[in-house]
């Protein structure tokens, strides 16, 4: 049995009077693919942001790897994000005036030092070896998302977070992206936490949790993901 990479206990997040996340106890094993489902406003993205060190919880405890996220300073959180986390967004958030390879190198720059050969190799791994010099505007939605994946994995994160990464993609592109993520996970052995509205996408994970109004209401194992 793999050790837990994430452990939360009584984790909460409030915005004024609104409680986005009610006391949550959750454990994610190292190398696991966890899908998070729920309707809009159920607290999925809040949970993802807190686990990725993008937001701070209001209470409870949260340990990711060796780090107690509540005890970290702003600098410590930045270091944690740099060393631990890769994020794939629904809206890509690529820099429009940089080429695909430069977008990947930008992530290297903020992590350590840029290495173009390595960035090229990452893009080749996601099947974009022929689109290295193209800017995001010259790429399709699926291709842009693959650049995002290359950018997210370039720094060898232990935790890959996806916030509805296939939300804007058609069915064929979605399948390609999911297949790619599965292959990369098998090679790199990172943990995946993916927020999605799509039941079919959720089944690619090992386990799915369902949030409703900030409360974990259901949890199920996925046979497809585990296979």
């Amino acid at each position, binding site marked *: 049995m793999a050790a837990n990479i994430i452990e939360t206990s009584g984790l909460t997040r409030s915005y004024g009077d609104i409680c986005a996340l009610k006391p949550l106890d959750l454990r994610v094993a190292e190398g696991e693919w966890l899908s998070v489902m729920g309707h809009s406003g159920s607290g999925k993205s809040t949970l993802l942001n807190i686990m990725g060190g993008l937001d701070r919880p209001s209470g409870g405890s949260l340990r990711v790897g060796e780090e107690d996220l509540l005890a970290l300073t702003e600098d410590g959180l930045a270091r944690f994000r740099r060393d631990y986390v890769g994020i794939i967004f629904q809206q890509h958030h690529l820099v429009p005036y940089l080429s695909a390879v430069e977008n990947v190198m930008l992530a*290297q720059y903020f*992590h*350590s*030092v840029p*290495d173009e050969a*390595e960035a090229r190799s990452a893009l080749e791994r996601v099947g974009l070896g022929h689109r290295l010099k193209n800017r995001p505007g010259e790429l399709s939605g699926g291709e842009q998302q693959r650049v995002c994946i290359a950018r997210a994995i*370039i*720094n*060898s994160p232990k935790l890959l977070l996806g916030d509805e990464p296939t939300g804007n993609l058609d069915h064929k592109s979605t399948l390609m992206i999911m297949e790619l993520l599965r292959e990369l996970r098998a090679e790199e052995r990172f943990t995946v936490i993916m927020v999605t509205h799509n039941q079919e996408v959720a089944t690619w994970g090992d386990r799915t949790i369902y949030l409703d109004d900030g409360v974990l209401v259901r949890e199920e194992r996925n046979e497809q993901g585990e296979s």
Partner: protein
Amino acid sequence: MALAYKLIPLFLAWAGAVMVLGRGFPGRRPMVAVAGSAGYAGGLAATFLLVRFLPGDLPFGIIKDAVGAGIILMWGVSVAAVYRSTGRDVPLPWGERFAHTRLGAGICALATGILVGAICACRFTGADASVPVFLLLVLAAVVLACAVLAAERFFFSSLTMYPSGMTVALVAFLLLSSSSILRLDLFSPLTMKVMKFAHDFVHQFFESMLIPDHFFFNSFTWDFIGFFFGKQVGFWGALIIWFVPVLLVALAVNLVRLPAVAHIRQGAQRRKMLAAAIRERRSRLVVPALAAVIFAAAVYQSRFPSVEYWDPKPVSVTASPSGEIFIPKKGEIDLEDEKLHKYLFKQGGREARFFVLMAPSGQWTVDLDACAICKPDGYGQAEGAVLCYYCRTLIPLDTVGKPGGCNPVPVPFTAKDDGIHIDGLTLINRWGETVQATTRIKETGK
């Protein structure tokens, strides 16, 4: 209050040196504090005694030589740093081990303390160098050292100290403190040495006829050759001598190879290791950069010392019908106050500027307000010496009146009970012979 103001650069240098030592010998703070403070007290006491019992400028000369030795050491260390950084590793296991022992840290702190204390003592002369002043200074130095060492651990943890950087930084602080005292200033004499070297070098070319005195060398050419005789050559040459070691240390830091990372399979890990090495290299550059700033401050202090020169406005005098200039010892001006008094004598469209001085030994002297080698910018008086404004050479009061070098050109005179008697024509002629000649040399280079 004025003295407290003058002590600022000295204590600033002491605080800086203690900070450098504290960072350079991590884990040896108590030893640095004790040895440094003991050295400071020892240097202070020894200099007080030397100044009291040794004649003239000898104690100042000893301290100046010690600081000069520091510059030579800095040159050696910086050149060695460049040599080692290129991969030609010079094995110094004994030296490096010794530097990291308590004894090594203690000796380094002691030597620095002695020098800083000795320099500080030179600020106090005569009756000022008393036991209460000594105790007060030692107390202030000890308190400052403890405060700096306590604060040092909270000061930029990324700022790493290494042997060549530490040497450059310590010498920079020593020069900062010594340049605030006229008789310890090394930069101005260095500019003179460089200027004279350049002058002699060009002169040798003429002597050996490598540059023939030929009509081909018109006045335009001489303007360029004259550059080598000018003050600017001395200034820039001395700047190079001061700053090159700092640049060499920075160069050595840049030349050090980055760690071999090719064997690391994971790209992120490889890049992280490279980034850490590059970050450390950058943080190492901070030390020579700071040293360069301190050197610049020392040069500034040397060029614009916070010393109030005694430089009275020349008083016009006339000659009697027999051609004699008479200056009374007592009158509107008291000539016996051991200060130089300047006069201006005009005759037939010609003029001469001169001064009268009674040295502390009671010896009278009358001299031109100019020397035989510099432009006639004149002299000021401060701290038991007169200073040539052109080349900033200090001439002790006891040697004023002797000819040669940058000493003011002596003028024949007769000292009687009532005053000083000078022959006006001799004065005018001597001015013409020397001052106008040096002006031509400095302006045209010929």
